[in-house]
């Protein structure tokens, strides 16, 4: 890992504390583009992958509603429905 540390030292000297974001791959299914478009505006998509598969339609619905109501995510009702469908089908358990 020594080489890695050297590279980090160089990056720090350059004053760059930013990190590249590794792409997070979601399951290819209907609704994926909608999820990627809206959810990744505020956070990386690994938040979805790590919260699986124990979530279900009810808990994913609550989570999406929290993003809209508490955090102000600008998601329309039809888009929210598509996001909930995708998450429940691909990152959930049967409820």
């Amino acid at each position, binding site marked *: 890992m020594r080489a890695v540390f050297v590279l980090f030292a160089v990056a720090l000297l*350059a004053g760059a504390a*930013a*990190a590249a974001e590794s792409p*997070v791959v979601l399951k290819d299914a209907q609704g994926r583009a909608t999820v990627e478009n809206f959810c990744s505006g505020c*956070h990386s998509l690994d938040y979805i992958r*790590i919260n*699986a*598969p124990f979530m279900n339609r009810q808990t994913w619905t609550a989570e999406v509603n929290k993003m809209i109501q508490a*955090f102000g995510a600008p998601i329309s009702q039809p888009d929210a429905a598509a996001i909930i469908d995708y998450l429940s089908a691909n990152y959930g358990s049967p409820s």
Partner: protein
Amino acid sequence: MRHQPGFNRRGFLGGVGGALTLGVLPARAADSLLLTIGLPQGTLDTVTMEALPGKRPLIKLTGRPPNYETPASYFANPVTPNDAFFVRYHLAGIPNRIDPQSWKLEVGGEGSATPFSLSLNDLQNNFEQVEIPAVCQCSGNRRGLSEPHVPGVQWGLGAMGNAVWRGPRLKDILAKAGLAKETVEIVFDGEDGPPLTVTPDFVKSIPVAKALDENTIVATRMNGEPLPHFNGAPARLILPGWTATYWMKHLSSVRAVNKPFDGFWMRGAYRIPNGMFPVVQRFLSQETDVNTPITEIVVNSVIAAPAEGQRFQMGQQITVQGVAWDAGYGIVRVEVSTDGGTSWQDATLGPDSGRFAFRPWTHRFTASARGPLRILARASNRIGQTQVDKLIFNAAGYHNNVVRPTTVVIA
């Protein structure tokens, strides 16, 4: 959050490319210790070992905002290295860098007679400097081990660390501000903020009594060095004994208020049902009929070694070691079972470096039968609190101090 020109609040979208990629290793290939039994399958399938700038490779749960935990093997030592200390953010608007020369801490609010600002130099030279070793533990540490699982960052064992923090006492800073007797809470904000302006900024309050506690400090140094950027440089609040939600990073303002602060992160988050956990210090001005802000850390311990699944030979001496901690009442006993909980022996406690710090412990034994062997540890504190055998379930996954096994194999 203060709005300063030049901040790149979406720093994680740009930045250095190649360096990080080299730091990526699949967690299971890197170290079997990283995989904590009981995490959701989706978490196990997703986490990697990655290094943020200035950090060693840690267990990456999420990239933006960054949430990285410390592998449990680090808890074989009571002091957690700065570059291995866990990283936790709620919102992705994190400055790439904060210039320690131009950074200012604003002190004021309606309960303050004389608002003023302090530079880093002021904090380090115009106030008495105190040092305190204290555990910084995320309220949701071990959330990923909740049964049933609950939504959120699926932390394993490592959303915590112990460091020696140095800086002025908050009460000395507040004395300069001249608090009104009506002051009920002190409100803290940091330089980081939400990516969308409509999203509630992460702002927290604490009771005025806790703010005036002699152990509450504004740390500018950690383990003898400046704070790492991702642990709150140039200064963060240190609230020994209370969970890390209050330990505001990149501190930008301290405000005295005359009525309970009603921001989302106080009223809508970090709450536990009333009476569910044995806490002594409550946050009464924020309490409702049903719930109350999380406050004190519950008594707990972790086994740092041996690792889950580690193999030993019959007759080989095995050293079990780890740390124990609580809200500052003091660890008085750690018991270890090497037979799955049937019998318990007292572990040997290591040096006591302060009542808010990790207390190291060790226990040596020799296995006398082949096969899997379950090792457990159970800590107790000076006021008679002990880790629980059965999870006290709550929807946010807080305060998980269940006695949990590490299983090794005797060949």
